[in-house]
């Protein structure tokens, strides 16, 4: 028998290789390429969590170019709900069943329910109570399906550091290749789990992860700034509590656990 960690490591490496392969051949300008590569770790995690469920149909709300392209490459029946303010390829636009502001896109549940609904950076950008938002998102999940959300962590290293020096700019977009959503509330892992409980959803997996690489390869840096970014990234890899992002997979409480 192989150790579960070894199996998980191999699955992670395979997913990462697949995402990288799609990125290598994506028809994007090099500036966009570098930004997508910068934020690839979160895409790796979302794709891994999605693949784990062997879904047939996936709804991706506010995906970036890479996440959408990898889901399509994996052969899922992908329904894209695109958010305004993020230029995407014509090919992806043509596949979208909805596009607009977050309020418009989430105005009603999906016409055809999906095995997986993916919603990166959406819950904290919605002014409603998190349980209500989770309920709204879960309304598009088919029976037995899963809801996967990614939320920027209020306790990440950079925010902790900024808090020591003044107010934290919560409206900062996570990255220029994700939709520019305003951060309306700060949600930690515990709040997400309890919000799920109130919404009738069980958090079956909670992952703390980094949502980007140590540095953007095209960002001009001095040796000291490059060094501090690298050290900060290594620290995040070692200490889960200061990682950037929380990814939670929910199932309906009465259907699976």
């Amino acid at each position, binding site marked *: 028998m192989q150790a579960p960690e070894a199996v998980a490591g191999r699955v992670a490496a395979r997913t990462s290789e697949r995402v*990288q392969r799609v*990125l*290598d*051949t*994506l*028809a*994007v*300008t*090099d*500036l*966009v*390429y*570098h*930004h997508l*590569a910068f934020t690839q770790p979160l895409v790796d995690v979302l794709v891994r969590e999605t693949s784990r469920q062997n879904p047939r149909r996936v709804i991706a709300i506010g995906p970036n170019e890479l996440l959408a392209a990898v889901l399509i490459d994996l052969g899922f029946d992908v329904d894209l709900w695109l958010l305004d*303010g993020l*230029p*995407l*390829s*014509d*090919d992806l636009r043509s596949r979208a069943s909805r596009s607009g502001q977050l309020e418009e896109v989430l105005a009603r549940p999906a016409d055809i329910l999906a095995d997986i609904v993916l919603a990166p950076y959406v819950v904290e950008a919605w002014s409603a109570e998190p349980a209500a938002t989770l309920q709204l998102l879960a309304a598009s999940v088919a029976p037995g399906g899963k809801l996967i959300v990614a939320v920027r962590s209020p306790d990440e290293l950079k925010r902790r550091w900024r808090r020591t020096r003044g107010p934290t700019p919560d409206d900062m*977009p996570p990255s*220029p*290749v994700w939709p*520019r959503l305003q951060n309306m509330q700060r949600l930690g892992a515990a709040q997400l789990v309890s919000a799920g409980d109130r919404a009738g959803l069980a958090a079956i997996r909670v992952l703390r992860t980094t949502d980007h690489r140590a*540095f*953007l*390869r*095209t*960002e*001009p*840096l*001095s*040796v000291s*700034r*490059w060094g501090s970014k690298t050290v900060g990234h290594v620290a995040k890899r070692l200490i889960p509590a200061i990682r950037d992002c929380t990814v939670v997979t929910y199932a309906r409480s009465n259907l699976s656990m």
Partner: protein
Amino acid sequence: MRIAFPYPSYWPYVRRGVERCIHDVAGFLAERGHDVHVITSTPGRPRVAHEGNVKVTYVRQLSHPLVFGYRPRLRYLAFAAAASRVLAAERPDVAHLWNYSIPWAPVLRSWLSMPYVLQVGVRGVRLPDARNLRPIARLMTMDIRKANQLVALTAGGAREVEVKFGVKCGVLSPPVDMRLFRDVAPRTRPPVVLFTSDLLDPLKGSRLLLRAWNEVWRQMPEARLLLAGPYGLPGFNALPLAHVQTMIDDLVKPGARAAVDLRGPGSLDSLPALYSSSAVTVLPSLGEAFGMVLTESLACGTPVVATAGEGPGEIVSSPDVGRTVDLTSAADLESDERALQLADAILSAIELAYAPQTTRLCREWADRWSLDRIGAQEETLLYEAASAGLSLENASA
């Protein structure tokens, strides 16, 4: 002939003039039965791809924050070294180089018996004057001075090269594929003003256009501005993508802002419809050796507005196909007076766009740069360079 096109950037990562030019000419030559190899770089992992009969080798780019922070131009040298290794393995009959391809091309020519054509793709403020360069910088331009065949993109560009480098320079303009770029969609009303160049390249004039847009919108509130260009290039401009929206918010007044559509670069396939349906394509740039945006737009039957000097001025030399604005320095790109002049030119070109003969006249004008004509000139040039290289080799033997 076995022909190599080494150039650091290429599709899909960069889609400016030189890359488009290489793509179109390489495809033309491959169709004519030549063995064509584009050698370029990728921000991802090295790979080999095929575009029809054209082989494309992507070598790894040197992209690191410390390189961008201290010596961004090291990236060109890293590419030149990697491309030299590929050329040494392939030993093509002739190579077509551009600025920044391989600075030590004359050395490579002697080593590999590989003659080369060099096309100078920059001019004005972007082209250094070799007479004022220090010895090391002069060394970096030996590829220009020692080329078997040296060509610029226009007659004016060739004169500038001859003055700055003291060498003979011919003309080979970039082509426009008239089969791809044609009037495929009816011109829309209300009118659309199109900008397809790099929004973050300060010399392309996007800031001037955004300032001018306030006046265009004041006089014609139904018009729309469509920004369909890429967002900056690593090494040239490190501003984040979000800076584009900030730039629009800073320069365009709130009412006029609602009529600005930030579309992003999109795909090549979408361009002909964009050009055709627009009323005017605008390129208020400086240091422009040619302006392929202009010939593409004209091929689609859409008039243009461009600077009166340099390459664009040589393209837009008839009032039947567009309007020009005098732009000569970087200060002009920040000038309110020039912004008003640009607005007038855009409004005049919109009027021209809806005149009955305009589509036909624009397309006829663009035909002089058609891929069939320019491709044939390119083929002749490469044959001449290759045979000159052979003669040199025989003479030295």
